[in-house]
């Protein structure tokens, strides 16, 4: 099950809504929820009110309801699937079903407290370095997030931009100092991250074991609009991601290829406390068979970078010069 955050035409920025995907179309989940409660569970008295609690204006708000809200989501989708999308309307006749192109999709998790990329986490890269003992990470500021279709704007201060594809584990339940064996209870889903780096700046900052400007400029974090809801460890281990530049695959890996397990990452970073909507992105790029490893992938103005995973979705960005001009 994939969910999205988006704005309908003429909506104001704070009027974002949560959508679920079914048969390539988007369902307005708040209205679908009210319709489901009214029709399937004969609960018309407070159906609209309940629906607005469970499906508020942020995905984080939905995640905070925990497992009951996710079970409700499953029931709504199966209700809609049985009812058929063609005539599906809300209790008062409101529209539920939209085409993907009718909704302006947003970065799904707007303001996480922790949006970290776990550093040096792929086997290919660490083979050349001393093995990392702990999953260190760096913070990508929410103000750097862009989603599918938005350009990556080449910053004036850098000569050298590159990209890494990542799978981000999304937190669904708050906790602190979580033991590894309980880690999966705190996971609600996954999305994709394109981690853009100004490599020349990053290398200079690395001399003092920092990375800030090289990782945190406007549009330096591409986020897939879809969040795949789930937390089955076996399914997640098999999640694959591909990063391609102008249609050619440059990175390809599965979550199971990563040096640090999801359990290790949650155990480590939950020392600070974690909350619904937080995410931890894991990059790994195993060499493609017969193809030279590119890790990271250098960008140039005019190119298009795309990160995709069959189960999660995709996010793609044109790379443009500052000022919006393609050189």
């Amino acid at each position, binding site marked *: 099950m994939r969910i999205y955050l988006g704005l309908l035409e003429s909506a104001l920025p704070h009027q974002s809504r949560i959508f679920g995907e079914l048969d390539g179309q988007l369902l307005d989940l708040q209205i679908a929820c009210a319709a489901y409660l009214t029709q399937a569970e004969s609960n018309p008295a407070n159906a609209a009110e309940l629906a607005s609690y469970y499906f508020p204006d942020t995905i984080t708000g939905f995640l905070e309801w925990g497992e009951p809200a996710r079970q409700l989501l499953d029931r709504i989708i199966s209700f809609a699937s049985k009812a058929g999308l063609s005539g599906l309307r809300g209790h008062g006749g409101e529209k539920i079903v939209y085409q993907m192109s009718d909704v302006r999709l947003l970065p799904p998790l707007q303001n996480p*407290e*922790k949006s*970290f990329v776990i*550093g*040096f986490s792929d086997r290919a890269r660490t083979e050349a370095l001393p093995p*990392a*003992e*702990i999953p*260190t*990470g*760096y*913070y990508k*500021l*929410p*103000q750097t997030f862009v989603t599918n279709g938005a350009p990556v704007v080449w*910053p*004036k*201060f850098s000569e050298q931009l590159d990209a890494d594809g990542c799978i981000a584990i999304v937190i669904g339940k708050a906790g602190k100092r979580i033991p590894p064996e309980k880690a999966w209870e705190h996971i609600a889903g996954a999305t994709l991250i394109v981690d853009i780096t100004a490599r020349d700046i990053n290398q*200079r*900052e*690395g*001399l*003092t*074991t*920092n*990375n*800030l*400007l090289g990782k*945190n*400029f*406007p549009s330096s974090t591409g986020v897939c609009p879809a969040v795949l809801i789930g937390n089955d460890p076996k399914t997640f281990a098999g999640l694959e991601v591909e990063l391609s530049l102008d249609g050619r695959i440059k990175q390809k890996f599965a979550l199971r290829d990563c040096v640090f397990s999801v359990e290790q990452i949650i155990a*480590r*970073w939950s*020392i*600070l*406390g974690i909350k619904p909507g937080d995410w931890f992105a894991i990059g790994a790029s195993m060499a493609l068979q017969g193809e030279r490893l590119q890790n990271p992938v250098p960008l140039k103005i005019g190119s298009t970078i795309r990160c995709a995973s069959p189960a999660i979705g995709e996010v793609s960005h044109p790379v443009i010069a500052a000022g919006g001009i393609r050189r």
Partner: protein
Amino acid sequence: MKLVTFIDDDQERIGAIIDTLGLNQIVDLHKAYASYLHAVGNAATDQLAAATLGSDMIEFLKRGDQALAAARAAIKHAATDGGNGNIVERQRVRLMAPVPRPGALVSAGKNFSDHVAEMSSKKGPVAPVAFLKLPGSVIGPDDDIAHPPEVKNLDYEVELAVIIGKPCVDVSAGEAFDYVAGYASFNDISARDIIRGENKSGIHLMGKSFPGFAPMGPYLVTADEVPDPQNLKLWLRVNGEARQDSNLGYMIFKIRDMIAYWSQMGLNPGDVLTTGTPRGVAAGRKPDQVPWWLKPGDLVEAEVEGLGCLRNRIIAE
């Protein structure tokens, strides 16, 4: 003005500490401005006060000169009106950090030559060095600093916090101060052992960002009342004993250079830059034979000249 964020009746509110009454009274800006509007014959005073001042300190800062003028009118009104429910006693409320949730908290490292030397770094940096502290690590002057059980080497760093007042992108050093809303005392609490462990494998983040590792306050002094921020003394005491004592004049990259450099990532109202710390931190202080790490029970006082003393107790988590 000395602007504060405080909790009264479980509500987060913005206020100003008034000098004339011995720094122990706070004007509740919303209440006082609404009362002022009423006095000058305005209707819908609550809604107008809320729209003019904003719902929290960042919203207030975004409103710029208009909100500052309204705050001044509110303070003047409250003082002449004899309080009238618009003034609360400092002791009766809990002060938060003046900006309790900055969008970005950018903290400079290795930015005082005496501190670079005591930490045995070979040379100073070629460009400004900084890291992000998590906004969730910010606490105020009435909060304790929790000593996490994972940390063995807990350290302090007195710094100046520079609070940005306007969207600030690619500005020059010459115009940098136009973007500053004000200043506050700041303590960059650091877990040296955690940082060392992180640096071995990558970069440090956790060691600077435990909850409570960014005390700020007690108030934000607006820029118009700090004519020469680059030339302020700053000091820190632990249990009354002086540990750090220096001057912001010794910064390697000056405040104006820091603003210009970090404006390349795009800064917003309520974002906070901190200056880096001078010598005297526990990890490097001479002639201490054994580093005097912070421990539960210690009282840490960090102060920048004219910006008020930031006093926090260390407690075991």
